């Protein structure tokens, strides 16, 4: 075995080790994301229940009034705010998809076969995986702040 092939063996071992490390970290990050999503769902479920009870009380109060309740603007503001749960859940889902895509790329990198590896082919595969991931993530969430969205009638 010459020094060149020894070097390539070490490079392959390093790549395998790096791939395993990346995949383990991504797996842990995905678990954290799932837990974050569950906590968010649970918190918003409780908020929704409270909101519905408050809303029903307000509607009953409204029936007895001739003017609009001063609480109504706050209820409307709460409705806009609570919708960010839906947007946040979609963003968490996108992060999970990105991490899974990264994990697939790391796994593919570990498949290299030392000196026998066709590096041009490997590079092409990486580019294809990156492109496939971006295709899956094409739809971007535009909302950047807590303002309500646009309305357009055709």
């Amino acid at each position, binding site marked *: 075995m010459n020094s060149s092939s020894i070097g390539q063996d070490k490079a392959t071992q390093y790549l395998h080790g790096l791939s395993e490390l990346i995949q383990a970290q991504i797996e842990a990050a995905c678990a954290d994301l799932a837990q974050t999503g569950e906590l968010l769902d649970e918190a918003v479920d409780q908020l929704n229940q409270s909101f519905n009870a408050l809303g029903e009380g307000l509607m009953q109060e409204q029936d007895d009034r001739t003017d609009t309740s001063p609480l109504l603007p706050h209820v*409307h503001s709460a*409705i806009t705010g*609570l*919708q*960010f749960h839906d947007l946040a859940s979609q963003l968490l889902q996108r992060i999970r998809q990105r991490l899974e895509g990264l994990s697939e790329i790391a796994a593919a990198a570990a498949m290299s076969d030392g000196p026998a590896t066709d590096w041009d082919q490997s590079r092409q595969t990486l580019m294809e995986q990156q492109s496939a991931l971006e295709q899956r993530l094409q739809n*971007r969430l*535009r909302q950047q702040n807590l303002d309500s*969205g646009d*309305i357009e*009638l055709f």
Partner: protein
Amino acid sequence: MKNILAVDDSRSLRQMVNFSLKSAGYGVTEAGDGVEALELALSQDFDLVLTDQNMPRMDGLTLIRSLRQLPRYQRKPILMLTTEASDEMKAQGRAVGATGWIVKPFDPERLIAVVRKVLG
């Protein structure tokens, strides 16, 4: 009372739409995706359909296309309520027959104003 079909796979979002429109005096029926909405639209006559785009089983654009093929819904207002905000998606909505496009999160007062306007 005008009846509105609210379609969204998010239960909390449906609740928000339901509460907003009921507070303005509308009757609201909920559906969790396009397939359920189409079944409801075939069995009941709604005055307006408000639908999300990204849903399991059937998305909003497909639902609108399907509804527009039914004589009963050829002229009924159908509004898209979605996080999708690109001009390309809006153009697709217009092409399949959407009446308008509302980007989430919605402001209840503005939603009610638009619903009033399209219902005449």
